[in-house]
Structures are given as structure tokens and as C-alpha cells.
């Protein structure tokens, strides 16, 4: 494992811990209940960070690059991850809060207090600038990954990538580029004033990724040995 990975793992680990550090230790049962209601938001942020870590991990296992350009791109990624820890926590606390209230999971005084707390989190006119910043962040992360894979692609000769590995590298550039495309769409919607649609458009990520995954599997070149055998028969 290179030191770039060791440093990045440290940052990812602390970023995960930051999600919890920002909670206060509950002192009574109603505070504990509030902390438990915060868990879905914590889980969502945790899942996003672990997903990013896994993409990062896979990139470094595949190519083991540590040239200055890769280190610079990696720094940009860590910067974005850390910068968005608190904003993500904020976003999901709010979304989960609205969902809990909408589905009537709480009742009576609890619901009223909690509702007031969640309502006070956002001033309506802040929704658009916040949406723009979140989408810009997601665009940044997608671009960094696309550029990292583009870097590996440029060094494909030196890395001695075989046909399948080249295919996977190209597919990753396309996949991260598509993620960036969704972020651009969201930015455009938000600029046009459709803030809610700008948020919902992230649900496109699921079908797009599935489609790209299927295409990638279908177009995968056969293993080296099989190519020789196949062309002979």
C-alpha cells in the first residue's frame, strides 16, 4: 500500500468519525430518541463516504499510481470529501426529518417539537444556492474520478494493461463522466429554478449506472487465452 492510500484512509476514517463527533452524547431518554432519529441520516452519509472510499480503493489497487498528477487529483478528492461532510449530514438530517414527519412516525408533542426543529433548518430562499453547491460538489467528485481513470488510460502502455483491463478503464471513465453529466443536469435545473427537480434528478443515477454496467459486461473482451482459441476455431 502506498503512502497516498495510507493518508487517504486516515482522512476517510476521520471523515466518518466526524459524522458522529458532531452529535452530542444524549443525557436523557428524549435526547436519546432524538439521536436515534438521526441514525438514518448518519447511515446515508456513512454509505456515501464508504462508497467513495471503495471507488478510491479500487482505483489504487488497479493501477498503483503515485505520480504528482495523481497525488494532486487525490488531494482534490480528499478536499471535497472533507468539505462536504457537514453539508451532507445537514442535507440528510433535513430530508430524513421531512420523511419522518410526512409518514407520521412521531405523534403529539414530540412531533411538534421535532417538526419545528426541522422547519427551522431551512429558509426557502436558501434552497437554490445550496442545491447549486451540492451539485457542484458532486460534479467535482465525478470529474476527479474520471480524470484519475483518464490518467491511468494515458499510462496504459507503461502499466501493461491487457484488453479487458483497458475496456474496464474506458468504462470507468464513461461511468464517472455520466455521474458528472447527471450533476450538470441538476445544476441546469437548479439554475432554471426547478430546485426540487434538481434534487430528484439524482435518482437517474440508478438506471444509468445499471445500463452502463450491463453494456460494460456485454462488451467485455474475452480473456487473452480465449481470444487465441476463439480465432482458431
Amino acid at each position, binding site marked *: 500500500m502506498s*503512502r497516498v492510500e495510507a493518508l487517504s484512509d486516515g*482522512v476517510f476514517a476521520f471523515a466518518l468519525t466526524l459524522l458522529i*463527533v458532531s452529535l452530542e452524547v444524549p443525557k436523557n431518554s428524549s435526547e436519546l430518541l432524538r439521536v436515534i432519529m438521526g441514525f438514518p441520516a448518519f447511515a446515508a452519509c456513512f454509505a456515501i463516504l464508504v462508497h467513495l472510499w471503495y471507488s478510491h480503493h479500487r482505483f489504487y489497487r488497479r493501477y498503483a499510481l503515485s505520480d504528482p498528477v495523481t497525488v494532486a487529483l487525490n488531494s482534490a478528492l*480528499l478536499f471535497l470529501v*472533507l468539505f462536504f461532510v457537514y453539508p451532507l449530514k445537514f442535507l440528510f438530517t433535513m430530508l430524513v426529518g421531512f420523511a419522518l414527519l410526512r409518514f407520521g412516525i412521531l405523534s403529539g408533542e414530540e412531533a411538534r417539537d421535532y417538526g419545528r426543529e426541522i422547519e427551522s433548518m431551512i429558509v426557502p430562499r*436558501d434552497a437554490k444556492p445550496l442545491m447549486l453547491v451540492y451539485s457542484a460538489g458532486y460534479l467535482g467528485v465525478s470529474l476527479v474520478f474520471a480524470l484519475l481513470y483518464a490518467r491511468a488510460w494515458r499510462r496504459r502502455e*507503461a502499466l501493461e494493461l491487457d484488453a479487458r483491463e483497458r475496456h474496464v478503464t474506458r468504462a470507468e471513465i464513461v461511468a464517472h463522466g455520466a455521474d458528472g453529466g447527471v450533476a450538470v443536469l441538476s445544476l441546469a435545473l437548479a439554475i432554471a429554478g426547478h430546485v426540487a427537480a434538481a434534487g430528484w434528478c439524482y435518482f437517474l443515477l440508478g438506471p444509468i449506472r445499471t445500463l452502463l454496467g450491463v453494456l460494460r459486461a456485454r462488451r467485455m473482451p474475452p480473456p487473452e487465452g480465449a481470444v487465441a482459441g476463439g480465432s482458431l476455431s
Partner: protein
Amino acid sequence: MIREHLTDLSAGEPHFRWRGREATRLEGFSDAVFGFAITLLILLLDPPKNSRDLIWQMLSFPIPFAVCFALLASVWYSHNAFFRRYGLSDPWTVFLNTILLFFVLFILYPLKFVFTALVSDLFRRWGITIEGTTLDTDSAHQLAMILDDATPLLSAFGLAYAGVSLVYLLLYAHAWRLRERLGLDAAERHVTKGTMISHTGDCAVAFLSIALAVFGHVALAVYCYLLLFPSRRAARAWTRRRMPAPAPA
């Protein structure tokens, strides 16, 4: 051709054979400190309670955060370069590394204050305000206090940065003393000297900034760090121009 690139990839630098192939425990430990130091920059913020706070943080925080992040990343990059190049882990290296980590952690608080104050000052001058955020209330007051009395903060930051550069200088001097035993060739000795010049330049910039801060030129003391770019560039140019020709095989 492919072989050449491969050795280039695994051995790192064109003029330097990496003697530290695997990261040692000393480096793993240092990386944990570097990682935590970078994360501490975020911990100096309060988690936002409402969208006004969040917007204020998103406007005011990225620039100071990016500057601090870049500075720590550059210190980390020098650390990696030193340990890759020489692969040293003797007691004197361990001792100097400990001093380095101390300065890295020490640098954080003044660093963040200085840059946050700088950005807030610029915002105030350009008339960027966001009503209903913490800027309007106590933090504006706090920032005004920091700006009024920036000399100790800037001096503390300057001392820590000079400390970091000085420790790198001592580490490279140590490698220089061991040049025979490490089997450094002519190009590697030259790169070692060039890196020492670069860290001396960093150190000089830090002391210049301290002097400016002590004599009351607060803004100049901050912008003086921009001199790091030409000074490092000059050291790199010197190293490249005087690079000895490779010994005939």
C-alpha cells in the same frame, strides 16, 4: 520502452532511485497524524444548525480551507519524498520526524485563524454580507479582534512554518552526511543539495513574514508567503540546470 516506464513508475523519480520501497511504521504513524491534522481543519467549524449558517460556511470556508489543505498537502508531499528517496529510519530521523509532527499540529490553529480572518476581511471590504448568519453577530466581532491583534498569530504561524522547513533541512543534511553509505550517485547528491536550497528558501520566507508581522505590517506578512512560489521555482530551476550528466554505463 515499456521496461523503462515501469522502472520509472516503481522507482518514482527520474534522477533519484527510491531506497525506501515500502512505507515504514514511522511513515504510517506520521500519515495518521497528517490525516488527522487535515481533518482537524473541519473540526474547527461548528456543524451548521440552519441553512443560513451553512451558506455562510460554504461562502467563507472554501478559500481558507483550500489554502490550509494545500499547505499541509505540500508538507506531506515533502515528507513522502524524503522517506522514499533515502528510506531512513535511524533514531536521529525518528527524533526529527517527531519534531516535525509537533510543528505540523502546532501550525493548524494559527493557520486557520489567519486565513479565515483574511477572507472575512476581504468579504467585509467587498461588501459581501449574508443577513441572519453568524457573520453579523459575534463572529464578526471575534474576527475584528483577531485582525486587530494579528501579530502574535502570524508570528506563531511563521515560527511553526520555519520549524517545519528547518526540520526538513536537518533531515536532508542528515541524508547528506550519510551520502557515502547510502551510495548516492552524482545526480542524487545534486538533487539532495537542490532540495536543501528549496527548504532554506521556505525558512527564509517564514522569517521574513515574522519580521514583517513584528514591525506591524500585518497584510504584507500574510502575502509574503506568496514568495514561496518563486523561491521554490528558483530552487527547482537551479537543480535542473546544474544536473550532472549521467555517468557512462
